[in-house]
């Protein structure tokens, strides 16, 4: 049986914790708003880039660019986008689970963006090629080294394909960990496409519909592809990072909201227990006084 003093002390500490989690919730909510806006606005660009690429792809000859065919090597490169900081619920755990259970062989190399992913992969003794930590809010120039690294790696021919593991932002309550193929650009999946490009846009490109347009390319097919494809790769990767950031802040906000709610419930229970104890003590004292008085008479 704890004493009233113990309970008072616990109430105080729980109250402090609730205050901290509440503050963190507010901070995450503010950041979430910004990150969500960035993610939704970025979608228009990647969307259009994707549509253009779909129509280009129909027209292009085979092997017009190395990004359309698998690399000669047998290794797989996985870019893993996680958060830098913890306290965001199952955000990183779910993504790790998704990536590790997706049947990647032993010949898988990892590049991580965000410290948490790097830490857990190091613990699992996976091949970590590079570890990036990008600041928040994400800016496109910061991502450039990552995009360059993965394209260089792919072009070197050691890797068969490049995958990206990231948390796709659907809405504040729903986040889906996904593993998507970035390279080679897959003509089949290009039309059906990632869910984020359809979200809020309503339009998903269907390659089978619409007339096949006979494009002329200026200055030349090769030059157009040489400019469009690297842009497509880095912008898609950037969009994935934005989606991941929006997911991170929302899941942190949700986690902190749950923590605050739990702390409040705990406070309620503790106060009830405290008051019961206090009343019992008073009753006991009264009882003692009356008994003592009766004994004296």
């Amino acid at each position, binding site marked *: 049986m704890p004493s009233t003093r113990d309970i008072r002390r616990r109430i105080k500490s729980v109250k402090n914790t609730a205050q901290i989690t509440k503050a963190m919730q507010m901070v995450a909510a503010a950041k979430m708003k910004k990150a969500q806006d960035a993610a939704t606005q970025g979608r228009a660009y990647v969307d*259009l*880039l994707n549509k253009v690429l779909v129509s280009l792809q129909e027209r292009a000859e085979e092997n017009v660019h190395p990004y359309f065919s698998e690399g000669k090597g047998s290794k797989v490169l996985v870019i893993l986008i996680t958060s830098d900081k913890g306290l965001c619920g199952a955000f990183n755990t779910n993504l790790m689970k998704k990536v590790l259970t997706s049947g990647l062989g032993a010949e898988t190399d990892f590049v991580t963006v965000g410290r948490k992913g790097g830490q857990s992969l190091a613990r699992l003794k996976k091949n970590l090629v590079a570890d990036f930590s990008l600041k928040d809010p994400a800016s496109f120039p910061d991502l450039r080294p990552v995009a360059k690294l993965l394209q260089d790696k792919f072009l070197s021919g050691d890797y068969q394909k490049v995958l990206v593991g990231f948390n796709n932002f659907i809405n504040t309550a729903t986040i889906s960990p996904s593993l998507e193929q970035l390279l080679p650009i897959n003509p089949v999946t290009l039309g059906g496409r990632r869910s984020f490009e359809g979200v809020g846009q309503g339009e998903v490109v269907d390659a089978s519909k619409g007339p096949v347009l006979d*494009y002329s390319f200026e200055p030349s097919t090769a030059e157009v592809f040489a400019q469009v494809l690297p842009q497509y790769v880095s912008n898609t990767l950037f969009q994935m990072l934005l989606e991941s950031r929006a997911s991170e802040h929302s899941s942190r906000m949700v986690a902190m909201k749950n923590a605050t709610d739990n702390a409040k419930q705990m406070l309620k229970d503790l106060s009830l227990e405290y008051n019961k104890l206090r009343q019992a003590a008073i009753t006991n004292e009264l009882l003692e006084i009356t008994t003592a008085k009766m004994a004296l008479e």
Partner: protein
Amino acid sequence: MLLEIVTPEGKAFSDDVSGVVLPGALGELGILPNHASLVSTLTAGELRYTKDGKTHDLAIGAGFAEVTGERVNVLTEMAVRDSQIDETAVQAALERAQNRLKEDVLPEEIAAVEAAIANSLAQLHLKRKRRTI
């Protein structure tokens, strides 16, 4: 004809226009409705479009354009109107970029710095053209 200009920050412009002139890699491209399908790379420069008989212009960065019969999609890293350009700020950015190019720049950064210079020049060009008239 629908003209859509999209940047990574969002949709910059979307409207029905009667004609558009793009800064193509091989020189200016004039696009009218029912133009043959075309994909062209764009350099940083000036984009002009005509709506209701009036011509408007925008400074755009490098990118590319997709032209189909009834729409023009422009994908670029920058798109600003004359009124949005702050000349002194752009001038300062330009000088900063040019100074960086003189110092030692990492090889992979050169392209980015050069793109920044081209963007600044396109903005300044648009702003100053307006003033001399």
